[in-house]
Structures are given as C-alpha cells and as structure tokens.
C-alpha cells in the first residue's frame, strides 16, 4: 500500500511541477531538482486568474468603482513563480489553487451548511408525554403520519394555523427529517422513506455496535433548510426544528394547540432531547450552539462517514477526517469567523492535497505493521500498549521520514512553502500513526507534540510565532488530570485552551481522535447518534468522501443546496 501511495505522491508532484498548467511553462521540470527557472509570468499564466481579472474589470466598469486588480500587489503581482494546480489527495481531481478557497467552492460551503443545519432530537420523551400524560396511542402508524406531517412542516409548510405564509418548496428542498432507532422491529414498521436503516448503512459488526450503544431509543435526524441556516446562525437550527416539531405533534396527534403538554414537547425538542453538533462558546467568543468553535474533534470524526464505507483502511478514514477538519476548522472557523481573510486556505490545503500527508501516513502504517506485528491494522487485540517509548519510536520515525521526503523532493518543500504547512503534515502523520498503533488518541496527541519538537530542532524553524506557544507546551497537557488540561482528544475542540488561536492544528487533532477508533474498528468515535445521523445519502454533501467533494466543488461539478435562482432575475 505504501508503495502505491508513494507513487501517487510522485504523480501529484509531476502534475503540479512537471506539466504545463495554463501557460505556466513548467512542462519537463525535474521534481527532484533543487533549482528551477522562475519565469515571472505573472497572474495571467493561470486560467482562473485570467477569468478573475476579466471579471474584476467588468465589475469595475459596471459599478464605477474599482475592485479586483492583481497588479495592486506591492512590488510585483502574483505569479513571479509558477502558479501550479493541486491534486486532491486520494483522488485524481486536479484543481486551481483559487478554487480551494471556500468562497469559490460550493462543496466546502455545503459541508459546513449540512453540519450547521443539523440537530438530533429524541422521540422517546415526546412519546412518553403523549402516552402517559395525554393517554394518546403511539404506534408505527402514528409515527409515520407524524413524520409525513413533519416533512411538510420542517421546511416551512403551515399546519394547525390558518392564513400562514409558507416557504417555497423549491427553495428548501434540502430540508427533511428522518428517524433512526436501535430497535429493528420498530425500524421495520417505519415507512422506508423516513428511516436511516442502520443495518443497511453500516457493516454488520458496526451496526451491532451502534444498536447496542443507542439501545431501543428513537431519534429524529433533522436538517433545516440551508437558506435558513445561512441567514441566521447555528443556534437557529434547534429553534427552527423545535417549532416545526411542536406544531407537527399538535397536528398529527390532534392536540389542543395551547394545552400545557405542548410546553413539555417544546422543552423536549429544544433542550431535554436535543443533541447539537457543537456546544455554545463562552461569552468572550460569543457563538451559539452548532457553530464550528463548539464542534468537538470527536463529533467531527463521527460526522465524517469514511469509517463505515472503508473500514478496513483506518489510515484513509483518519485522512478524510483530517481533510474535512482542516477545511472546516482552518478555512472557515479560524480563517473567517476568528480572523478574516484568505491566507488560511494555504495552511489547510497542505493536509488534503498532493498526497504528501497520505504518503507520510502510509509509510508509517508499514513501519508500524513491520515493527509491531500488524498494530496498524484494524483490531483491538493487535494494538501495542501506549507508552512514551512507543510514542517516541513511532513519532520520531514518522517525522524523520517526512522531513527527509521534503529534502529529497524540493518540489514538495516548495509546495508546502510555509513552515506551518509542513508542521501540520509532519505532526498529523505522527499523531495519526501513534493513534493507529495504540488505539489511544492521547498517545496520538503525544506523537503530535514530539513531532513538533523534532521538526523545530531539525530545521531550526517551525511555524509562525503562535506555534511556539501551543506546540511547545502541549505535551504537558496530554496526560494531565487537571480538568481544563488533560481532556481526552475526542472531547477536545477548537475552543480547548491553547487550541483557539492556531491554524493548521485542529483538523489534525480530529484525525488523531478518529485514527484511534478506526484502528480499533469502532463504529463511532464518541457519539453514535451523530455517526448514524450522517449515514444518509440524501444529504447534498457526501460525508464519506470529503476530499473528493472538495475537488468536485473546485472543478464546479458539485451541486449545492439553498440556491436562490428561483427568486432572482434570470441572467
């Protein structure tokens, strides 16, 4: 496997640096040469920049106010070295760099939309209210009727009240509710259109784990309209959902609209039975639930679905989580919510393009399997005991291999032209590897921090200023029992102390959490409800293949939701 990935990495370098792209005249270059001929062709060498320059001129003319003009770059415009494309790791999709900024990429936008607009609401408490308090009968038939009502109401259709305005179905066609349960008998009775069937969506062993974890409970997977979520915020998701849930119960079970039990149903939907994707952040960051800063690494691991579609390749599972995490946490959360601007894209793409991290990780898999008797394969009785000696061995070999690869392939070094990019890749490979071998995510975190130390000493440089704080003190937190320090990686998140300011880390941490569980063959990382909720092919974004989806977004093949074409003048 590692040999195949190494060949893929070399191919990506050749596509990027040894073939022409646009008019960059890179064809025939040697990917192992330490020198290059810098032609200084400017932005016009890139097909996308040409399109953007034309658009900028047209906009300026139309509105009478200047806008995009790459010649405004002080000293010289972009393109003094070759503008080169990116291969999305694990795929054959080649994308223009600009198309990996989330503003230019609808798949990236939709991934975040699909998470932010989702909440999970338990059905059992509401059913108990209906049965025990009101004496109503709840049967599979009534549940089906309720779900039919709810799938009318959730997108914005009216029930109960007269003369209500409604949303146009064609604008909210991505909104729906399905349910899932660990009770196979109940699942069989529910109309197929409404059920996420655990037995169908997961490998048999994972399905058993999931059903055992959630028991015979029943849950609603709610996805409110993308357009609603974009106009409001993540905190709106549960409120919108709870309103429609309450109204649908009233309608489906012929309740009195004002009776006190409605408050119980509302409380259940808004609080007691609600599972949000992300927790609310403290006042100094002031974000509602279901915003990225509160989305734990364990939750993100559970949202990404590669663990069920490719369970025998735990390295791949972890790499998809790293890619998704770097996009969401770096490009959208830190890059826009917390900072603003365009630079964060460069940090994030390093982890999911050009097969550089993949190459390092699969090298590690072979190293572990050779030295530790197949410990990187899926299983629980093949793991090596997590100890500092094991972490040191694996993380050191991983980091040294990664460093030497950059040294042997100057094009890879030029691809990851910033130290933060390289630090992300080297540390993520080390952390994922230590996790895979031990099945212990905090051993993975240890590997991450050791990699940072080795990297800094080998090259006398690391990332930007902030890396020194986070990555020099991080090791002291990995095994601390103090509550705000020693949290298991699965429960850490973007707002964990010291994690809140640094790009290039959080996707890696999520991948490390995932690697520990994918390596063990676990069906989920921390929350089975999220894992099942996103096992749904009706979602616009395919959470089993986030890196491929980003590529489809970049080459403009991805179809997003929440579009407004219906209600705007035709162009």
């Amino acid at each position: 496997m590692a040999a195949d990935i190494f060949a893929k990495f070399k191919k990506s370098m050749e596509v990027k640096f040894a073939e022409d792209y646009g008019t960059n005249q890179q064809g025939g270059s040697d990917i192992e040469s330490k020198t290059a001929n810098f032609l200084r062709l400017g932005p016009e060498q890139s097909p996308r920049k040409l399109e953007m320059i034309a658009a900028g001129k047209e906009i300026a003319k139309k509105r009478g106010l200047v806008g995009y003009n790459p010649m405004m770059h002080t000293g010289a415009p972009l393109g003094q070295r070759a503008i080169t494309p990116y291969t999305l790791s694990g795929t054959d999709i080649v994308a223009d760099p600009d198309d990996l900024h989330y503003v230019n990429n609808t798949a990236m936008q939709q991934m975040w939309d699909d998470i932010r607009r989702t909440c999970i609401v338990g059905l059992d408490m509401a059913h108990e209210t209906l049965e025990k308090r009101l004496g109503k009968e709840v049967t599979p038939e009534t549940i089906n009727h309720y779900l039919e009502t709810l799938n009318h109401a959730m997108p914005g259709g009216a029930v109960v009240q007269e003369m209500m305005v409604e949303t146009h179905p064609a604008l909210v066609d991505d909104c729906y509710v399905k349910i899932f349960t660990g009770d196979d008998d109940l699942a069989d009775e529910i109309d197929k259109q409404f059920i996420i069937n655990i037995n169908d969506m997961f490998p048999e062993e994972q399905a058993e784990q999931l059903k055992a974890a959630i028991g015979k409970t029943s849950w609603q997977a709610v996805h409110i309209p993308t357009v609603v979520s974009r106009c409001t915020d993540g905190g709106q998701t549960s409120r919108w959902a709870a309103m429609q849930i309450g109204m649908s119960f009233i309608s489906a079970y012929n309740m009195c609209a004002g009776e006190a039990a409605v408050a119980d149903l509302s409380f259940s939907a808004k609080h007691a039975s609600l599972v949000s994707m992300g927790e609310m952040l403290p006042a100094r960051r002031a974000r509602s639930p279901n915003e990225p800063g509160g989305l734990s690494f364990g939750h993100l691991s559970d949202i990404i679905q590669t663990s069920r579609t490719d369970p025998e390749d735990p390295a791949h599972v972890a790499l998809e989580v790293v890619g998704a995490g770097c996009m969401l946490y770096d490009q959208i959360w830190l890059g826009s919510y917390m900072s603003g601007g365009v630079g964060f894209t460069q940090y994030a793409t390093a982890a999911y393009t050009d097969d550089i991290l993949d190459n390092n990780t699969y090298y590690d898999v072979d190293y572990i399997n050779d030295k530790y008797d197949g410990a990187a394969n899926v299983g629980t009785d093949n793991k090596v005991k997590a100890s500092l000696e094991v972490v040191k061995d694996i993380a050191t070999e991983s980091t040294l291999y990664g460093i030497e690869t950059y040294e042997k392939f100057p094009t890879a070094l030029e691809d990851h032209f910033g130290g933060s990019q390289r630090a992300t890749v080297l540390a993520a490979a080390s952390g994922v590897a230590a996790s895979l071998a031990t099945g212990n995510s905090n051993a993975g975190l240890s590997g991450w921090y050791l990699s940072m130390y080795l990297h800094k000493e080998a090259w006398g440089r690391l990332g930007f200023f902030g890396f020194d704080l986070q990555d020099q003190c991080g090791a002291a937190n990995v095994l601390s029992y103090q509550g705000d320090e020693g949290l298991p990686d699965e429960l850490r998140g973007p707002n964990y102390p010291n994690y809140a300011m640094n790009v290039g880390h959080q996707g890696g941490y999520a991948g490390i959490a995932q690697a520990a569980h994918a390596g063990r063959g676990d069906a989920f990382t921390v929350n089975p409800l999220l894992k099942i909720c996103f096992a749904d092919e009706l979602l616009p974004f395919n959470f089993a293949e986030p890196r491929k989806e980003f590529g489809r977004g970049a080459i403009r093949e991805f179809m997003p939701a929440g579009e407004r074409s219906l209600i705007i003048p035709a162009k």
Partner: protein
Amino acid sequence: MVYNPQYYPGATSVAANRRKHISGDLEKLREISDEDLTAILGHRAPGSDYPSTHPPLAEMGEPECSIREIVEPTPGAKAGDRVRYVQFADSMYNAPATPYFRSYFAANNFRGVDPGTLSGRQIVEARERDMEECAKVQMETEISCPALSGMRGATVHGHSVRLQEDGVMFDMLDRRRLENGTIIMDKDQVAIPLDRKVDLGKPMSEEEAAKRTTIYRVDNVPFRGDEEVVEWVHRVFDQRTTYGFQPL
C-alpha cells in the same frame, strides 16, 4: 572553576555551527559600510540623523527607580531612537543561519533586542542604532551568505522555494541578484528602489555553505545521524510530558 556555557548538544558540524551562532564567536567574512547598511535597511536616508521618539534619557528627568539604576540603557534607548527592525529570510538549501539560531544569536549577544522567530524569516526589533549593530554583525559574518540569505521586510517567501538556476534564493520582489560573481542589492527591505547598488559580497560555494550551515539535511548532515540531539529532544519531550502528569 570557570563556567563554560554548553549552548547546544550534538557531535556534528551542524551542531557545532549552532553553538557558534549562539555564542557569537563568529568569523567575519565581508564588510558592509554603515551607509550601505542604512540604505538597504530603508529606515532613514544614509547619513541622516536618527529620528527619535523621545528626548535623550539624560534630559528627561527620570523618576527615582532602582531598576533604572541597575539596568544601563542601550545607546539607542539613551538617545531616544525609534524601534525599527531588521529581518532575514534563510534558504533551507544550506543557508548558514536558521530562524531559531538567528534569534538565539540576537538574544544571547545583544541587549534591548526583541527577536521574533517564524519558519521563513526572523526579525529583530530594537532601538534603531542598537538594531543596526546587530544587523551589521549578521551581514558581515558567517551567519549569512549573500546568495542564500536575504534581508526582507515584506513578501519574504523564498526560504523553502527551489533555488534559482544561478544558486540564489528566489525573491518575488527581486531585491538582490548575482552580478559579475557578487550579490548586489538595489532595493531596500520592502523593495523600494535604491539610488545605488550595494555590494553584499560573494556567494558561498556549495561546499562552504554545506560546511557552515545550521540546518540538518539528508543530503548533508542528516538529523537522524546526530543521535545526541535526537536524544536531547526526547529528554525534553519526556520531561514536559511527565511534568504535566499531575493526578491531583
């Protein structure tokens, strides 16, 4: 017994060079005039007075303060100079310096300096004349190679980019180049054109750069080959990890 600072572990030439950089015991390889240094720094016109942000300390009537009595102000602070910067980018293809070792050099050998360390550049901020003293040493000694190191205030990328075919580190803003076997610089740190060509000296040969560098590389001195340094890093890692293991 006289204490001899150890500075850095390691048995290789890279480790030895790191110890030299930190100690400040450096070989002078070239000269740059004060006027030329002032020109490429770009903070003031060569020959002009230092702009100041406050009167000389002696004229300020400072309050009684034991710390002020203990700490002798630097010349720049005494005179009331502005705080200005010098920043270098160093190629990963065997440039003599690396960002951390430029910082250690500055912090160990100069007073009143504020070093900042990144992956592709290293900055020292200080009162202007103090900064110039630090900058001059870096320009004239084995810490820098004119071809593989570059004084760059903005748009610094180049440290990890392949070298130009003439062996010079890439510079998007083309501040300096090889002319007649020597490196000349005709723009200042932020690429504002100068009215002169400043001669920065001859580039190091590949062999000399490999001998003087402080970066480990697999094609020169591999990091994994310097076992003492790797062992030392492991020791730091062990100690930080176990330090944090506090079950109370």
